[in-house]
């Protein structure tokens, strides 16, 4: 079982409260996922020509400063690093792909959790409230954020199997459900040049959407195509640098509630995660229809 939450702010005046609201929403999903939690927050964009990467190593004493220095020397660029728990946020004065290539070639012990210009991703074991606290979610300002809480029923509690999955710059996907055609789809995506980090079915969905978007599809078109190509049970919530989307399969047996007013759009597996949002009493609240794509954009 899992819990999903997502918050997309339409009113810029609320941006300073993004993290605080997402924390409350995430804690609301504790009973659906007490084992581990993950968050992707779209905030603090880096300056032109820079990129940021969220990195992970299980050892909290990992020498992140040395790593940043090595990358700086090897690529001949300025780097900056700050540690949060067993994650580190690295900002480099170059494209994310150069840093990723260097890491793949030189540091197999470092996992890349997410990358882009503004998205940061943290995943850890423990109660959602404890994870939010550890990574300082409450203080994160921004435009939109997505969270996932997990109750492990079949596979181990590890960070690499945790959501959100981040298949492309500033793109993340969370999934509640299971896919039945992920092996075939993985094979097909590999032929199209996609590479995989795990054997997880949700990663297949994430890379599928990333592939569609990279081929020029709009967010709506990518999700519509997914309704045809993905077989199984799913409620997906997806974030891109300026977009937010929700889609459920045609049977819609994995729960989802949407709420919207002039200031924000919020999604959660259950209403109790939405119960404390500002002016929720007057928001439009509905259950997303089966096989229907819902998208919002900042522009």
């Amino acid at each position, binding site marked *: 079982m899992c819990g999903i939450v997502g918050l997309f702010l339409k009113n810029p005046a609320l941006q300073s409260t993004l993290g605080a609201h997402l924390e409350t929403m995430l804690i609301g999903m504790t009973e659906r996922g007490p084992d581990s939690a993950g968050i992707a927050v779209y905030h603090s964009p880096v300056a032109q020509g820079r990129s940021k990467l969220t990195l992970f190593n299980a050892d909290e004493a990992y020498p992140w400063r040395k790593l940043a220095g090595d990358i700086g020397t090897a690529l001949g660029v300025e780097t900056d690093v700050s540690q949060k728990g067993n994650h580190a946020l690295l900002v480099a004065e170059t494209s994310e792909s150069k840093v990723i290539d260097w890491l793949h070639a030189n540091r197999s012990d470092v996992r890349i959790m997410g990358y882009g210009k503004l998205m940061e991703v943290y995943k850890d074991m423990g109660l959602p409230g404890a994870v939010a606290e550890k990574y300082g979610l409450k203080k994160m300002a921004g435009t939109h954020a997505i969270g996932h809480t997990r109750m492990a029923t079949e596979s181990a509690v590890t960070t690499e199997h945790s959501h959100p999955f981040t298949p492309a710059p500033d793109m993340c996907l969370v999934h509640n459900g299971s896919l039945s055609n992920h092996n075939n789809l993985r094979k097909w995506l590999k032929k199209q040049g996609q590479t995989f980090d795990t054997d997880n079915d949700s990663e297949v969905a994430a890379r599928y959407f990333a592939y569609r978007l990279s081929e020029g599809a709009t967010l709506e078109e990518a999700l519509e195509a997914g309704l045809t190509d993905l077989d199984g049970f799913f409620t997906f919530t997806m974030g891109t640098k300026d977009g937010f989307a929700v889609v459920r399969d045609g049977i*819609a047996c994995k729960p989802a509630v949407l709420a919207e007013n002039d200031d924000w759009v919020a999604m959660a597996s259950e209403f109790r*995660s939405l*119960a404390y949002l500002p002016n929720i009493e007057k928001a439009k*609240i509905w*259950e997303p229809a*089966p096989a229907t794509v819902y998208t919002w954009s900042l522009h």
Partner: protein
Amino acid sequence: MNVIDLAKTPLREVNSRLQKLPKDTNERLWKLVNVHGEHACAVGLSQPIEVQIDGHIGYYCGGMNQEATIVVNGQCGVGLAENIMSGEVRVKGNASAAAGATGQGGLIVIEGDAGTRCGISMKGVDIVVGGSVGAMSAFMAQAGSLAVCGDAGANLGDSLYEARLYVQGKVESLGADCVEKTMTPHHLAKLERLLKRAGINADPNKFKRYGSARKLYNFHVDNVDAY
């Protein structure tokens, strides 16, 4: 009126208090506030009391209800009034999936829309929806009636045994073995009484009736090649 604040009293205590009320209780009117989407609120009540719930509520609200009248001034989650035996459960807003699942009796009124599988496997409950219902509503319904003032989603009444379905708006598609039937004066009178009982203002003459073609009751020898 007794008001219980769920921000101060745990839900389990609230349910227990309402469930243990004696038959001749004078405390017949209750209001629950600050419910914040709690699951299994006001379940298993068995006395003729009225419980008003202020705010949006989570899953299984009013489940297994007998005799009590429950009014939700808000929206509600999955499995509203599941397995209701008698009494009445009314929602002023929308209800999520599987409202009235397996309900055996009593009345459910959803003034807004209901999600997918409304009245799934209903066994005698009457359900009136002021708005529309989602896909697969009245799936495997066995008895009772479902009246929908708006539209019905795909596969209405799939694998229906009995139960009477009335829809005023458009039906996206009918499920296996569900067919449109003639609205006889007998059914019209029943629908009129049902809408009146639910306090829903709609003209019964504008509804169409659907029910079971009863073709799935027995194995048909023409299908033998399929096995």
